[in-house]
């Protein structure tokens, strides 16, 4: 995200994001200069000490190792400072994008009142009846139920930037075996989707023939059915995501990409179920044109993404079970377009089972892979670079609200 200037944070703090970016620039240049200086020193010293192995070894054991650590730290700090500036700008844009009426409300001097109200409401399980809360009644009157729900969801969803924690390397067979088809992609999401967990994963794919590394991000759906929990993939994220608004879940995934070491050179496929699929589609929009990450493909299962205007250069395969109501929560048919292919499946599951991955979607994966429909085949060809890797390493992360 570009931009900069002064960002007001909930709580009345202003942050000068230009300052943070300037500091990041200095750290970035510093890290680069030190690394180059060290490289030059090593080359010169290696020439000078060509026949003196002992001296060469001494050189490597001394202060250079410490200097290398400092240079790496400077580079890391540069990334963190830039990410922080982005977060503040993103936080500002969240507020501005909440809803048309809400923006007017927030900007007309009642911002502090809304903030106080939100803090009061955070102590209650969920304001199902907004009229029972006096400030809530005022807001409800101005926004109507839909707008009110969005504002409340935003308040409950965004308690500050989410905390992303590495939970390690997935050494299981599934984690170390590259996926071969849609069934494998869905199975990877399914493995992460235990209720109450907020685990997501990033899988690095490598190729013996020298092709560039590819990355698959797996995002499970709603994992906590009460709002305002510590888990950003809870139900509060749903209304925001469906409206195309940023979520703490999505912000956490972006941080995870940075933490995992994903770069702009990696092509990224994001696979998501339900809420995870909406977040996947949103990230494709949010990161379009980003110099940091390159989302090229998205696969969703049971996700309402009709309202999300996905960039034309991102190939999307959207799976919708005929009997799954969730993909229709956005109130619009996901008609698809040139780059968005909606595949309707029927696994015989009904009711909530039609939305669950292993009953509503996974059983149809083989039929999709074996389909001779030209558009399906074309979509599968688009996914092929992610399905014929020679090796894979999977890192898992948990995302939590602060």
């Amino acid at each position, binding site marked *: 995200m570009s931009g900069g200037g002064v960002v007001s*944070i909930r709580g009345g*703090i*202003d*942050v*000068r994001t230009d*300052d*943070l970016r*300037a*500091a990041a620039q*200095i*750290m970035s240049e*510093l890290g680069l*200069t*030190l690394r180059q*200086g*060290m490289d030059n*020193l090593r080359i*010169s*010293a290696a020439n*000078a*000490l060509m*026949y*003196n192995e002992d*001296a060469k070894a*001494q*050189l490597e054991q*001394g*202060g*250079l190792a*410490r*200097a290398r*650590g*400092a240079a790496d*730290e*400077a580079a890391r*700090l540069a990334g*963190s*400072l830039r990410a*922080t500036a982005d*977060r*503040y700008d993103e936080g500002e844009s969240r507020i501005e994008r909440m809803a048309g009426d809400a923006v007017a409300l927030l900007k007309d001097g009642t911002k502090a009142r809304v903030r106080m109200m939100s803090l009061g409401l955070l102590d209650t399980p969920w304001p199902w009846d907004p009229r029972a809360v006096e400030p809530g009644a005022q807001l409800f009157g101005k926004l109507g139920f839909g707008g009110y729900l969005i504002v409340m969801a935003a308040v409950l969803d965004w308690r*500050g*930037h989410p905390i992303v924690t590495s939970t390690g390397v997935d050494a299981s067979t599934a984690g170390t075996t590259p996926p071969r088809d849609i069934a494998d992609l869905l199975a990877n999401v399914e493995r992460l989707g235990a209720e109450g967990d907020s685990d997501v994963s990033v899988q690095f794919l490598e190729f013996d023939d020298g092709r560039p590394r590819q990355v698959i991000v797996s995002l499970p759906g709603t994992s906590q059915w009460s709002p305002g929990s510590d888990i950003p993939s809870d139900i509060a994220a749903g209304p925001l995501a469906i409206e195309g608004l940023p979520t703490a879940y999505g912000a956490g995934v972006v941080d995870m990409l940075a933490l995992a070491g994903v770069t702009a050179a990696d092509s990224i496929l994001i696979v998501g179920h339900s809420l995870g699929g909406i977040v996947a589609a949103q990230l494709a929009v949010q990161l379009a044109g980003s110099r940091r990450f390159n989302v090229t493909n998205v696969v969703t299962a049971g996700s309402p993404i009709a309202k999300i205007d996905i960039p034309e250069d991102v190939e999307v395969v959207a799976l919708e079970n005929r009997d799954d109501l969730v993909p229709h929560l956005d109130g619009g048919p996901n008609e698809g377009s040139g780059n968005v292919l909606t595949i309707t499946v029927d696994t015989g599951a009904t009711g909530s089972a039609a939305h669950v991955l292993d009953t509503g979607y996974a059983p149809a994966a083989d039929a999709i892979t074996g389909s001779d429909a030209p558009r399906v085949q074309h979509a599968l060809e688009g996914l092929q670079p992610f399905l014929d890797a020679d090796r894979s390493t999977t890192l898992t992360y948990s995302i939590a609200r602060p």
Partner: protein
Amino acid sequence: MGGMTDAHNLHLVSCYLEEFAERLVAACGQVGTADAQTQWQSTSATAYRRHLVDLRVDLRAAAALVQDDAARFRALARQSAQSR
């Protein structure tokens, strides 16, 4: 003759290290500039400020170590010249 060349090369490396130590000290100053120019108002940004302070400490320590290395290589160069 070989000893002389070795002494010369060891001295050369000590000069490279000295120069790099100076660069580390300059980097330390740059971190200080970045810190001074930044307004740190939020909790999370303040955490980064602590990182900046830590980085300055690291850079100073690295500079001291590299200077030690330079001195060590100068001593090696002297020994090599004397043992020629």
